[in-house]
């Protein structure tokens, strides 16, 4: 809203666009993208009640998962066999479930509705009139959308994680250094999340019937990210693939650092993988978009 008003005002003072001084704000693109980020963020965090009820849902969900894991780790037939849990203990798994629910909030499960509406209605044409790069604009919007649930929905989940009795509690990190690296990993997860959702927006721009398949990819990404089950508990033969595939950085890699299930000497790998994949998604998406925009057909009148 804020940005639009400003755009109008400038139109009034400089109708022909001949005076470059009127565009000083847009001469610094960084500022414009930060403004976009701020608008989207403020818009999404204003629904405090929605965030809190969402947190209640997540907490309920976590508790059910903890029950199921506890049953497996306590009563299953093979539980005494060596290596059955691939190096994860029950308390680590419980901590994993709490933190995974928190990180899940950043992950895209659908398109940013604003962007999807623009793609479907042809308003992308209007977006193209803005003196901004469309890809960066979408990335900024998606980046804001990814972090905005963390405040009203994410913080209550973490607080709830410290309250229950020890068997259900979110445990402390493996070491202070592990915690620092985990925080870096979370930033990596955030970058990965918004670069992937931006990438899919670009894909959606290219395929007019693309909603269904894209939702499948969103879902698949969340499964491969380790939200449903810690990747270490997947079958052993899949482990190398699961570690290197793009979506491990969503949840699993940062949490391996927090829980200490992977030696800290491997931290460079765990931290650089999401950055590598984010770069792939951003560059590929940008190329796809520029190719597409050369021949774009705007739908709607």
């Amino acid at each position: 809203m804020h940005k639009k008003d400003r755009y109008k005002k400038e139109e009034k003072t400089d109708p022909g666009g001949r005076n470059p001084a009127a565009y000083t704000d847009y001469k610094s693109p960084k500022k414009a993208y930060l403004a976009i980020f701020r608008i989207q963020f403020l818009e999404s965090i204003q629904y405090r009640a929605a965030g809190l009820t969402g947190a209640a849902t997540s907490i309920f969900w976590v508790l059910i998962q903890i029950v199921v894991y506890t049953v497996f780790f306590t009563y299953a037939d093979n539980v005494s066999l060596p290596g059955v849990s691939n190096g994860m203990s029950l308390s680590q798994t419980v901590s994993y479930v709490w933190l995974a629910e928190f990180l899940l909030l950043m992950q895209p499960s659908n398109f940013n509705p604003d962007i999807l509406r623009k793609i479907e209605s042809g308003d992308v044409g209007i977006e193209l009139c803005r003196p901004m790069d469309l890809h960066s604009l979408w990335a900024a919007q998606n980046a804001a959308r990814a972090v905005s649930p963390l405040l009203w929905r994410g913080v209550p989940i973490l607080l709830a994680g410290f309250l229950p009795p020890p068997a259900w509690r979110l445990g402390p990190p493996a070491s202070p250094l592990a915690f620092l690296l985990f925080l870096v990993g979370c930033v990596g997860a955030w970058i990965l999340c918004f670069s992937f959702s931006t990438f899919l927006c670009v894909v959606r721009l290219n395929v007019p019937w693309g909603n269904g398949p894209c939702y499948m990819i969103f879902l698949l990404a969340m499964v491969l990210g380790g939200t449903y089950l810690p990747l270490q508990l997947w079958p052993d033969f899949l482990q190398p693939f699961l570690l290197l595939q793009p979506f491990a950085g969503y949840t699993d890699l940062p949490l391996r650092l927090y829980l200490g299930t992977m030696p800290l000497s491997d931290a460079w790998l765990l931290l650089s993988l999401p950055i590598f994949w984010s770069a792939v998604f951003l560059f590929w998406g940008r190329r796809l978009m520029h190719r597409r925009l050369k021949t774009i057909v705007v739908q709607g009148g």
Partner: protein
Amino acid sequence: MIPQVFLVVITDPIGSICMFARFGSIGEWSMERILLIYSMAITAFGLAETFCRGFDSFPYKMVQNGEFDRVLLRPRSTVVQVMGSVFHIHRAARVLSGCIAIAWCLWQLQIPMTPLKILFLLYSLCGGMLLYMGVFIWTSGISFFSIKGLEWIYIFTNGGYQVTRCPMPYMPRLLKNIFTFLIPILAVSYYPASVLCGWGEPLWKGLLSLPAGIGFLSTSLLMWRFGVRHYRSTGS
């Protein structure tokens, strides 16, 4: 869209399947047992969803933009109108995959199927369908009072059948009571499955599925009526 629903159905229990593959059965609770209970719940959910799809988008499509005013003007039941406002045939994918899963589990558990048992299965699926219809109706009825932040209702819809992932003897009493007496999801999944396969629950508990479904649906309809009376148009 149909492959999309299939993917949802397959990915939902994948966590359980991987855990069973790694940890083995829990006593006599094998993967097939858990899958059977789960797929009974999900088939019932799918059946209800096929017919009650309109309630899913009701808060966004009808209450938020005042479309519901038009529904109120027509001389027909509001429930039926909302129910029929959206119909997606692809939702039947969940029913289909649920049925396949039920058949596979029964075959793996080597339960001989007699006509009577098939009838019993259909009976309990019917109960489950009515129950989930009730869930859909009251969860969307809440939007008469609040149109934002309806996500917690997933505890009772999608989250509800997740509860069936936990083997019954190990389920905390509180959880068991909530999902037997408050929202009788276990009454339409676990108890019928237990009677069907002879896991030790008495027959009358299995037969409670249909009354439980009807009871829940009627309560929801009452709540819906209460909500309609409190409806205030948001449209212009």
